[in-house]
Structures are given as structure tokens and as C-alpha cells.
């Protein structure tokens, strides 16, 4: 047996965690390559063996836009702040589709990765995070459609476009928060799988995708602001079409996003250690 130089301190200590355990960001950083590979896997696999392939990323918001335009733009003649209704709707549908796909994918991701979780150690948060990140590729594709539509309507973006990356980040973080929380809940309560599609359907109607928030009576508008997606989606329209930003709404959305994310990470961390035993 040859003598090996060992570190004085153990690299890993395994013991029962306390009730309050902080998420180890160092650990997640150490596993960043795995995050990349799992995202890459989800992207690669998503449209395997489909006839239309990645076109699905565009078809989903496109058809929703057409239907919304017929019913709300034409029949109900919704006031869309001077923006052609198709562009108005698509600007809301692109982030909305990303959000709904991301929370569905990450909400179901842990349960779907049971074989990994019971066989290998890695920070579990990587699983819902990868599921969310994989959705960004679809988001970019769908966004290209939106750009084409803006060309068609000759909408010239203003300097406010620079605010777009912040909005994308906000969407991603909020999706991560909601998705992570659902993914942890799903391990214990498989009800999540059935509740999620239903919840998403309802959520769509209060997220300013179909109607601008200005269509809501001022008395109730504060209620809409409690939904971060409403503020974020209106933010996209402001950034793209040069409309005035609703700063209070965006501020509340950012605050709620951070709170959601922190709570999700806390809730996730509390059950993380028992995933392998109950999944």
C-alpha cells in the first residue's frame, strides 16, 4: 500500500442535516457542467421522433396568436394600446409560452429523473433548473417569429429594447422559482401533475396576455400586480413597442420573483434530502 497524501480536512462530511440548511451554492457551482449537460440533453431529446421537430416551438404561440386575434382582436375588438392586435398578443404569448412550458417541465422533472436521483449524487436543484433552461431555446425560436411580425407591422423598437434582457432574466427566475417549488411538491404529492395544466389555464387569463392591464377597472388593477407574470408581460410590450413602463408593477414583480425563488429554494432544500427515499 503506497502512502497517499490526504487533505487534513475531509472533502465531504455526511451527517444528518439540520432542519434549516442553506443551499450550497458552492456545490451547485461545482456541478455546473452537469447542469449544462442535462440542459443539452433536454434540448436534444425534446423534438426527437416528431415530424415537425423544433417547429413546435413556433407553432404553439403562432396558433394561439391566430385564435386570440380572431376572437379578441376581431370579434371582441379589444383595445391593444394602438399596437396591431397580432403583435400585441404574440408579445405576450412568447414569454407566456416559455413560462408555462418551463414550469410544466421543471414541475415534472424530479419525478421524471427518479432513476438518476436514486443512483447518483448531485445537487438536486440542477434537475428543475436544467428543465427550465432547456425551454430558453424554444423561447429564442419563438422570439424570432415575433421579430418577423414586428417587421411586418413596421414597428420600430426604441431605446427601451435594452431593458429586454432584464425581463428575460426575470421570466427565467420566476419560472425557476415556481417550477422548483412544484417539482418538490410533486415528489410527495403526485396531484401536482394534474393540477399544473389546470392552474396554467387559469393563470393565462390573469396575466395580461389577452387584454392589457388597462382594460381592467382601476379598482382591481392592484390585484393584477400581485401576479408577477402580468407585470413581466406588460414589461415585454413596453420594451418592444416603446410603450411607457409600469414601474410599480415591474418593481412588485421583481420583488415577488425573488421571494418566490427564495421560498422555493428553502422548500426544496427541506425535502431534498428525502427525495431518494420517497420518490
Amino acid at each position, binding site marked *: 500500500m503506497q*502512502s497517499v497524501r490526504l487533505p487534513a480536512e475531509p472533502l465531504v462530511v*455526511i451527517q*444528518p442535516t439540520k432542519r434549516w440548511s442553506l443551499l450550497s451554492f458552492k456545490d451547485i457551482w461545482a456541478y455546473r457542467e*452537469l447542469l449544462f449537460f442535462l440542459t443539452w*440533453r433536454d434540448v*436534444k431529446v425534446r423534438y426527437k421522433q416528431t415530424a415537425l421537430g423544433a417547429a413546435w416551438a413556433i407553432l404553439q404561440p403562432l396558433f394561439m396568436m391566430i385564435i386570440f386575434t380572431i376572437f379578441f382582436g376581431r370579434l371582441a375588438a379589444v383595445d391593444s394600446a394602438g399596437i396591431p392586435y397580432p403583435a400585441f398578443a404574440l408579445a405576450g404569448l412568447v414569454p407566456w409560452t416559455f413560462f408555462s412550458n418551463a414550469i410544466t417541465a421543471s414541475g415534472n422533472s424530479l419525478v421524471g429523473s427518479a432513476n438518476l436521483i436514486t443512483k447518483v449524487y448531485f445537487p438536486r436543484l440542477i434537475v428543475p433548473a436544467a428543465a427550465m433552461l432547456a425551454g430558453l431555446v424554444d423561447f429564442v425560436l419563438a422570439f424570432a417569429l415575433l421579430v418577423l411580425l414586428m417587421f411586418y407591422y413596421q414597428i420600430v423598437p426604441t431605446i427601451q429594447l435594452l431593458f429586454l434582457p432584464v425581463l428575460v432574466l426575470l421570466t427565467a427566475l420566476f419560472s425557476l422559482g415556481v417550477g422548483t417549488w412544484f417539482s418538490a411538491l410533486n415528489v410527495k404529492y403526485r396531484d401536482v401533475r394534474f393540477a399544473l395544466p389546470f392552474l396554467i389555464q387559469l393563470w393565462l387569463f390573469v396575466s395580461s396576455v389577452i387584454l392589457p392591464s388597462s382594460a381592467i377597472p382601476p379598482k382591481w388593477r392592484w390585484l393584477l400586480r400581485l401576479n408577477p407574470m402580468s407585470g413581466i408581460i406588460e414589461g415585454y410590450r413596453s420594451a418592444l413597442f416603446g410603450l411607457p413602463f409600469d414601474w410599480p408593477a415591474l418593481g412588485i414583480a421583481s420583488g415577488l420573483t425573488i421571494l418566490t425563488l427564495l421560498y422555493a429554494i428553502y422548500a426544496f432544500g427541506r425535502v431534498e434530502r428525502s427525495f*431518494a427515499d420517497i420518490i
Partner: protein
Amino acid sequence: MQPIIRVQGLGKQYHLGGPAAVYSTLRETLMDLARKPLRSLRNNGNGSRIWALQDIDFEVMPGEIVGIIGRNGAGKSTLLKILSRITEPTVGRVELFGRVASLLEVGTGFHPELTGRENIFLNGSILGMARKEIESKFDEIVEFSEVERFLDTPVKRYSSGMYVRLAFAVAAHLQPEILIVDEVLAVGDYAFQQKCLNKMQDVSTGGRTVLFVSHNMGAISRLTQRCIVLEQGHIVASGPTTSAIQLYMTSGLLQRAEFTQNSSAGKAMNLLRIALVDERGEVRSEVPYHDRLRFILDYEVNKTVNGSSVGIVLYTVDGTCAMVSGDFDSHPELLGTREPGRYQAMVEIPPCWLNTGRYTVTVSLANATTGEVYDHVEALVLKVLDTGTPGSLHGVGRKGVLQPILDWTTTQVSR
């Protein structure tokens, strides 16, 4: 010298009823909550917990290869899962002074839709290899796997043999300081198993520390110098492999004349029962040397299989393979096609043939052509009793695996 693994007072408690009972829907939880006051009256508190592991203390020195042996349910898998950080201990502490990689399954995270090449990267990354590391070893991995030609084919089109080879090739190239390996060598064909065992020996001679769980006593005795024997969640022995295996095999508790397991539609072939019976048909684990050993096997075939065989292997207490027998000897036609259904087979070892002592019996339902193993269980532990054969002089048994009574022809040829 400083140990690389230090385990102190480790224990893990599970709720009785198993993981299946814990997984619940919201409705069940609500109903449970409503019933709870009643239940706590009936149940008298927390009688429904069991310790899967308790009071586990041991140390492993750098470069050591340590085997962990024990029956099913002895706590081996729980111990490995704790050491691999998959599940948390309830009490105790483990200190690891090195990078750990664990191999509780071959091909963890393989995605059927991805190609062999893509899966090498994915699986390597899941097992904890850095991308650069995978890139630098890529050619070596491909060569080891023997599937170069199918590298760009989705693995769902691979035969199970190819799949296992590719998966193991990735795992065999892990270079952690501590490697934790579960019973993963039970899959794959024999030649490839040997190749993997050799590769693992390379690993250990490279100064790496290995914890190795297996039912294959041959592999355990070949690879390890020291073993920890677990029984019902406790360490019952720890010491040189030869004596640990002896203890494991001869411990009186462990004699077992019948083994049954549930039907499993997921497996192409699945053993349901094997029993050792005497001439009157009674199940017994001790058979006098003068009697025949009759094994009755019940198994199910869940889908039509070609090239399959049913075999038993007997091992002596020191892990030496005493004999192998397969149903193809009498039924070559079964090597062709075996239709779905339940089967019963009987095989006998003639009297006055095996030496006295203890043997373990392993049953293997496998594919003789592809090497795929459908089911593999270490099923029985039996004892051939000394009945005072003429040769067992002065109470000392004869040496050897066999103790046949042979015909000697002796003539005096000169004076």
C-alpha cells in the same frame, strides 16, 4: 496512517411500510390526518420504524479494496447509498478525504434517444467527470466498449449487451480517489465481466480506494483483501476476506433450503422458487452425503426468448466455483425458443459425489447467446452432512470439492 473513509456511529431509520407507503396523494394525507388521532391510540406511538443500519463504525485506508457482504436486506445498499450521498443518515457521521464516484448501476442517466457518443458525455458528466476529462479519455472509452461502429446510433437500438458494455466502459474510466461499486458486474457476458474486473484491479493498484458490494464471492475474494460483513443492519465481522467469507457462508442462521420471489413481468425470465428437497419431497437444507440433492426450480417466462438457459452454480465456502449445470444439457431444444408461461425444472446431484460441507447455490436465468442475464440470485445455502464415509478418517474430512466413491481395481502384480 490516516484513513480516507471514516464512518462513526452511522445509522439509518426507515418508516415501516417502505417507500411505497410514503408516496401519497394529497387526499391520502388529508384522510390520514383525519384518522391520525385514532391511529396513535391504536398504535402506541412510533412502533412503525425500523433501523436499516445501526452503529456502523469502520475506517478504510487509502488504496484499500474493501468488500461489503451480507444477505439481501442486511443493509449493504443503504450503506452504499449513504456513502454516495443519495440518502441521508439518521444519525452518525461519515468523513471522506477524497473525491468519490459511485457506481450503483451501469448506465445511470443513459438516454435511449441519444447516440452512443452523446451518452458517453452525458453519463460521464453524471458520474462526475469533467468535460475535458471525458474528451481526453473518449477514444479509450470507445475502444474499451467495443461498440465503435455504433457510436452514432441511438442507444435504444443497441442490444442489451452493447448497452452494458458502453455503460461500463464509461464507468471503468472514472478516476476518483474513492470508488463505490454496487453489484453491477452481475450483468453482461462473462468475458466482459472479466475485462471489467481486471480494469477494476488496475484501478486499485493505482492507489485508489474501492468499496465493493457483491454477491459474487469469486469476485470478492479476487478483488478484496478485507471485508465487512453486515447482518440485519449491523457489522458482525470485519477482517481478512477469506475469514469473512467463511463466516458469511457458514453462519448457521444463513442456511436456506428454499428461496421464493414474486412474479415480475418486467423481466423476460424470472425465478419464482428454488428448493432443495429430500427423497420424500420435503424441503431441507441439510442433506446426508449418501443422499441425492434434488433441486426444484419454478420460473416464469414473460416473453418469447431465444437462446435462453436456466442454470445453477454451486460455490464452496471459500468462493470457489464447484460446478455449473444448465438445462441445455438435457433440453437442447430450449436453447431455441422458450415460449411465455410458467415452468418447473428438476435437477439432481447424485449421491456420494459432493464433498461434505457448505455450498451456496446461485441460479441464473440468462441468454446463452447474447450473454444477457435475466435473473441472477444467490438462492440457497446448503450443507452436505458427513455420514461417516470410510474416507473421513479420524474425523477429518477429505480435501477437495468432490468426494466421489470411485471404483479402484487393485491387483498385486508381483511379490
